[in-house]
């Protein structure tokens, strides 16, 4: 019987061809775990709201609640794209790059002469970078921005003849592309690694990176709220404390080690990887805070309720992704 619609089998076959992740029970366990944590956070939030005494406490809990609601949405989107597979993740991260770049460039005082350069950055360099990951061209993906785009941007600006603050403008655009596009694109690039004995399960590595990076942010926040006394660099961010940093990095390392079974790593290697991710996450948070402080804003945007902009949420990921990728590639890809 022909209904004019492709059969389920045909869709499945096409999906496999497009790089859709095969059924993976362990990934399902991970999803289940995250779901459990989200439900727990929502329940705790509801209970705390009932018992909040002071106005200050209520405000903190209101913010916590907003963050939890946003987490539900972010996890849902991430899970969905991960299930769609490689294409889904690439589109998701490409969109995140564009939105992050939007928030970043909006804060930078570019000049009218930079317009065309920015058009190139948004509509050519960004899609190209993710396309290169899509076709698994590692050699070009890893140098397209540091070599080609790096030289293209000042050239294109120089061609306009506007030399005012020339180096500053070029450098600001280059930095934005490096962070929002190049560094972030290393996260979905994990899907192009071929690790012996781990074929078809690359999605877990991406999940692992995102989970550890984001959880290290949450844990730093929680430890900071609970014990935070000694500020790390008060001129940059009054909310970052040594207690939050140490507690966050250690618990995130423990979490990463406990999740060794979803990775191709031994428990010890998993702990090391998680430690590096958490450490770089802190570095990302610090650097992006310094940029915000300099631009005299609190957040990069207002897209995500309770969190600020998208760049506020992924700063840790941007820093952790490239190093994590290269560690995995160096040690686990022959």
């Amino acid at each position, binding site marked *: 019987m022909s209904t004019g619609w492709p059969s389920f089998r045909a869709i499945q076959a096409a999906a496999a061809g497009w790089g859709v992740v095969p059924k993976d029970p362990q990934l399902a366990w991970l999803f289940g775990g995250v779901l459990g944590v989200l439900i727990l956070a929502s329940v705790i939030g509801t209970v705390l709201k009932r018992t909040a005494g002071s106005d200050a406490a209520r405000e903190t809990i209101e913010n916590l609640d907003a963050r939890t609601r946003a987490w539900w949405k972010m996890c849902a989107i991430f899970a969905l794209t991960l299930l769609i597979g490689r294409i889904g993740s690439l589109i998701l991260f490409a969109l995140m790059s*564009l939105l992050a770049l*939007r*928030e970043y*460039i*909006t804060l930078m005082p*570019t000049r*009218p002469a930079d*317009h*065309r350069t*920015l*058009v190139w950055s*948004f*509509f050519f360099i960004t899609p190209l970078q993710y396309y290169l990951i899509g076709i698994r061209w590692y050699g070009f993906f890893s140098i397209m921005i540091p070599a080609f785009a790096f030289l293209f941007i000042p050239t294109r600006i120089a061609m306009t003849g506007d030399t005012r603050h020339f180096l500053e403008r070029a450098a600001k655009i280059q930095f934005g592309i490096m962070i929002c596009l190049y560094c972030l694109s290393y996260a979905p690039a994990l899907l192009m690694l071929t690790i012996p004995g781990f074929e078809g399960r690359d999605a877990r590595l991406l999940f692992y990176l995102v989970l550890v990076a984001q959880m290290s942010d949450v844990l730093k926040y929680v430890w900071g709220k609970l014990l935070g006394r000694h500020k790390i660099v008060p001129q940059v961010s009054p909310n970052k404390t040594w207690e939050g940093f140490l507690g966050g990095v250690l618990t995130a390392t423990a979490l990463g080690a406990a999740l060794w079974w979803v990775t191709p790593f031994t428990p010890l290697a998993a702990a090391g990887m998680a430690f590096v991710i958490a450490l770089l996450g802190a570095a990302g948070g610090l650097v992006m805070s310094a940029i915000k402080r300099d631009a*005299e*804003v*609190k957040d990069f*945007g*207002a897209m995500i309720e309770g969190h600020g902009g998208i760049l506020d949420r992924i700063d840790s990921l941007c820093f952790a992704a490239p190093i994590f990728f290269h560690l995995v590639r160096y040690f686990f890809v022959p």
Partner: protein
Amino acid sequence: MSARIHPLASLIAAAARGISGVQVRWAGCRPENRQRIYFANHTSHLDFVVLWSALPAQVRAQTRPVAAKDYWEKGVKAYLAQRVFRAVLIRRGGTMREGGAEEALAQARAVIDQLADALGETSSLIFFPEGTRGAGEEIAPFRSGLYYLAKRRPEVELVPACLENLYRILPKGEFLPVPLSSMLTFGAPMRIGETEPKDLFLERARAAVRALRRKGQS
């Protein structure tokens, strides 16, 4: 009478909202369905569409932009202006070029007649009193059209609106936009004083737009 919105208009408005990532704030009034003249600073072709898209659907159906006839009367532009957005096309400042003061006065009067007609009983207008697109944050002195229109229809609310960052998204003379974020703030409605002199009123209106700027305030 409720006008139908052209499907292409809704499509363009949705695209403009996406590209401009606009955060809308109603600081001085509610988005009500009443007769108003929205006036704003002008730096980009996106200005009108973004402002229009920020209005609720019923209000949108009743709100028409005012645009320069010399710029919007040919080809695709004419189709967009007249059919899609039902713009009121006016002749702008011909005083320098042709005729004496008499003729200029007659022409200005004709334009005000046309705008008052377009307002009718239920319609609202979107108006850019600078008369042309500026290059940046600076707001040029307002042309006198807003004053004469306010004089003619003093019962219509004048709502100032400030558009920020759109000149970076789609500057004058560029074809492709850069999808940065922008802000739109609506201020408190103002009315013209019965004996208010022209220059004072125009300067007050301009100051009202400038006061809505959010940049550098957060």
